[in-house]
């Protein structure tokens, strides 16, 4: 991709990180690590790839996005706000009583959220359903999903993997946010789901392994998915959990806690945001 486009998408990714951390700090709770790790993927999908219109969020012909790892909601909400689905100020109500911005994505109330998720393993199945419906109705929309690397320990993910291959859902592209950490520790220590690429390949998917924080590689993976016919694509995206905030990077402790005021100031400074 050209430098101008890359700079623009990198800036959207930075804004997504800032929005996510602001939301989590305001909520005094949330999941920063896995929201920061997917900022480039969200930026590329929402600002380069997907046909979505903030003015017509329910357009039946739109591309769909399912955040199967629903706990990274702060990242998704920040991306939706950055795209203009709702005001950025709303991010400060994240997880608060009365806010539409529920702890986990809620399609009934949040403009731009295509599927309610949070219970791991279910979002990828719903994405399969959307892709299948698109095939039945002969629509050309595409469906994107992001799974967590811990999430794929759920057996349902592999039920969905069988389903997507069987029905040749080449309009489905699922990213696996391979940051290597889950709540209880390293994924390889908790219950090792690797090798992830070989598993999806064995299930009959087209598999691309990339650096998931590299916009060029994300673009190549998405183009590869679009060019692949007759099977779904899994993008195994190696990422850094907590990327962009030094003390959160690769730290399992930052899976699910909010920064205090001091930590928040450091995070904003590192992300280049003036408070």
């Amino acid at each position, binding site marked *: 991709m050209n430098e101008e486009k890359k700079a623009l998408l990198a800036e959207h990714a930075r804004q997504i990180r800032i929005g996510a951390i602001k939301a989590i700090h305001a909520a005094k709770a949330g999941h920063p690590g896995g929201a920061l790790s997917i900022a480039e993927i969200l930026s590329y999908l929402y600002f380069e790839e997907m046909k979505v219109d903030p003015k017509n969020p329910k357009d*039946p012909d739109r591309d769909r996005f399912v955040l199967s790892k629903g706990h990274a909601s702060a990242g998704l909400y920040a991306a939706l706000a950055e795209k203009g689905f709702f005001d950025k100020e709303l991010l400060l109500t994240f997880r608060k009583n009365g806010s539409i911005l529920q702890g986990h994505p809620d399609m009934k109330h949040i403009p731009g959220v295509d599927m*309610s998720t949070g219970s791991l393993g279910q979002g990828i199945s*719903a994405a399969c*359903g959307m892709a299948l419906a698109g095939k039945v109705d002969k629509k050309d929309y595409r469906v994107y999903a992001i799974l967590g690397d811990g999430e794929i320990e759920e057996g349902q993910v592999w039920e969905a993997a069988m389903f997507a291959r069987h029905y040749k859902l080449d309009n489905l592209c699922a990213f696996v946010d391979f940051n290597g950490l889950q709540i209880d520790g390293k994924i390889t220590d908790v219950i090792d789901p690797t090798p992830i690429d070989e598993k999806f390949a064995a299930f009959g998917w087209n598999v691309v392994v990339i650096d998931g924080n590299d916009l060029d590689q994300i673009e190549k993976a998405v183009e590869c998915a679009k060019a692949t016919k007759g099977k779904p694509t899994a993008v195994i995206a190696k990422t850094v959990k907590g990327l962009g905030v030094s003390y959160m990077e690769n730290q399992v402790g930052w899976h699910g806690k909010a920064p205090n005021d001091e930590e928040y100031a450091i995070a904003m400074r590192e992300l280049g945001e003036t408070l």
Partner: protein
Amino acid sequence: MADKIATRQAYGEALAALGEKYDFVVLDADLAEATKTGTFKKKFPERFFDCGIAEGNMMSVAAGIAAAGKIPFVSSFAMFAAGRAFEQVRNSIGYPHLNVKIGATHAGVSVGEDGATHQCNEDIALMRTIPGMTILNPADATSARAAVEAALLHSGPVYMRFGRLATPILYGDDLKFEIGKGIKLREGGDVTIIATGLPVYMALEAAKILDGEGISAEVIDMHTIKPLDSELVIASAKKTGAVVTVEEHSVIGGLGGAVCEAICCACPTPVLRVGIEDTFGKSGSGAELLGEFGLSPENIAAKAKAAIKLK
């Protein structure tokens, strides 16, 4: 009551018939021959999707189809639709209130020979706890067909419960089936028998036995468990002062629970519950097991007399 047809048979026929007029898809989990969705599959193969033995995935796939604007009917045995996939039904379908129609067959002990692992006596209780879920439990083939069409035209998730065993036809084509409106099959003044699903015909038989003993029983077919027709329940309970509930389901959390919840505040009335006591089923013929677990006209009549004594 000459003809007997299983409600699952009616379900399959209804899907195949409605498929000509309405644009919906049908999913099954490797049980299409048993759930009778195979009838639809033969007629509309391009709108039928077998999900294999993976009920959790199937429910969430159905949610995605509904989120994309299409109506899916999803079928498996009640044990796996409501039991195994409970959390998918709750979180993928119920929470976002998606337009998914769950057709659960092989409910209750009348499944027979397969035994306890396949005899679901808990599904109504489970489904009833999900906000916004509509639960239909038709008593015969005629009302089962009507229930399928009503579910299709209803906006929101619906759980339909069907049986394996062939049972008597109770209704003619003039049946008016309305979700949330129980059907009073017989007027009476001494006791109210509220039944749902398969044993409704037994409730009518019980009323005849009671009639022979000079006891006048009111019989209600409560085909919709949720939303419950509380108005009808309360009015009848006030009139007769004694209630018996009858269901091929655990006495915990099903119709009996729903009726008790409805009348405990409005008009405290003695209620005796006929159903599967707090126990698992077992192998045997369906007809044999029904009687053994207390689902017989004679037991219903005995419970009605006991309820009257509690007035």
